[in-house]
């Protein structure tokens, strides 16, 4: 059966949820938390950028957030011979551990299209200390601007945000025995 996104009860007042300190989820790590009224949500730190994904695959309800973060491919057509493939978007594609469907962690959209998507939420870091990257030993004084990472701020998931409103509303999809 298709999995319908659970609508938020009208009386629910939670609009955002504090996950904890952003330092608890270093780059490359993830944490699955339980939000009252929502259920499990996976929070991912991808190269310093945070993402939150509801832990329910729109296909058959699989635990999305335990899936592998990978890249995907795109075709390069070459006249007169077979097409080749190019590996792209490393680490930005979340594959459901049940049937390996690919989802774009930025938008929640399934890569095969058909308007299939997993619910994703906006995440931001409040407060915290902005720190430059560690000194790499280069001579100081050049004009290069270093990126600034947020360390130790409060990691907040917006539950009623723009992305959350685009919940998975798929219908007519038959069950997959695969």
């Amino acid at each position: 059966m298709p999995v319908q996104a659970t609508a938020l009860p009208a009386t629910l007042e939670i609009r955002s949820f504090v996950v904890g300190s952003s330092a608890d989820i270093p780059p490359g790590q993830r944490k699955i938390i339980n939000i009252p009224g929502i259920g499990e949500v996976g929070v991912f730190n991808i190269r310093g950028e945070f993402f939150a994904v509801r832990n329910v695959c729109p296909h058959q309800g699989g635990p999305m957030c335990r899936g592998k973060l990978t890249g995907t491919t795109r075709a390069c057509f070459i006249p007169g011979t077979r097409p080749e493939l190019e590996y792209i978007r490393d680490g930005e594609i979340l594959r459901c551990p049940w049937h390996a469907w690919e989802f774009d962690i930025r938008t929640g959209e399934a890569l095969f299209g058909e308007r299939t998507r997993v619910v994703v939420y906006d995440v931001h870091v409040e407060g915290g200390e902005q720190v430059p990257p560690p000194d790499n030993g280069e001579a100081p004084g050049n004009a290069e601007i270093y990126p600034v990472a947020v360390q130790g701020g409060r990691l907040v998931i917006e539950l009623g945000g723009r992305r959350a409103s685009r919940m998975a509303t798929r219908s007519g999809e038959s069950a997959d025995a695969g």
Partner: protein
Amino acid sequence: MRVDAAMHPVVTKSSDLRTWLKEPWRSTGLPEAVNRDLMRPKTPWYAEGSKPASGFAGSDPKLARRVLLEEGDLDYVVLLPLTRGMMPNLRREVATAAATNEWLAATWLSPEHNPDGRFKGTIRIVPRSPRDAIVEIERWAGHPHFVQVGVPLATHLPYGRQEYLPVWEAAARHGLPVAVHDDGGGIGIEFPPTCVGYPTTFIEAFSMRPFNAAIQLSSLICEGVFEQVKDLVFVFADGSFDVAGPMLWRLDKDWKAARSDIPWTEHLPSSYLKDHVRFVLQRWDGPGGSDDLAKALDIWNGAELVMYASNYPHWDYLPPQGALADLPGQTRDAIMGGNAAKLYRLNQAAAPEMAEHV
């Protein structure tokens, strides 16, 4: 418009093809024109009323014209001759395909036997020899009555493989669909007729054959051929509509998980059928009852994808009279000729005999 999308003409006797074979092949061995390796459930092996006083069934254009065009009330018949299968000597196989085309043009498609242009022909090629295949396509593409290219169902490499790409490009460039049909047995270098080995009896060989067509279709889709050659159309002219449907369900489902292996297959596998694939409906393609057949056609968009064929003069000949009579009118009209007319660009005005009735 009523069109027979696959009828199988044959020479009067096997050695007749030598007239059109170039040397040294004319003077050397040649496989038989009619293969009798498996015992068909019926003797004789051919359709009633298809055998002239002398010569093979299906060898007389006048008889075929009477049975199909006059008594059968068809507007056009697409002739799809078989070419005696894969041969160890590729040169001989290429020469045999070329001779088959010369023969068809000089006989069935000649002004004598085809004054009104209602016989349409198939350019037989050997796709496993791409350079020769392209030469043969170029040789006949300008002929007014060759409307498609014909390739064998049996291969050593499935048709999606890059080796064939220049051949498919040549066909598409000339607006010629590529028809896939079993080539009648061969003389021993084909793979077994099923992927798992040799069947024992005719029923196994015959009823399992369409699975090979489904595999060829899967190869074309999964190798991205229809993305690479945008105007290419394949006609599965030997059944397989009934087995292709469930295979496409499976492909569609697995594509959602495995599409990153084949990013050139940019769309749902089944979505390529509409623009790139047609099936010839054989007697057994689909469930038995006519209500169920209508349902099956609906599920897989048969009204758009399927074309009637008589399979004359083979034993399972489906006469055009009353064929598919139980189908809903619009679906029946499309399958009985509308789809073929569109694909092969046939119109009634093109047939002089018919012109006065338009």
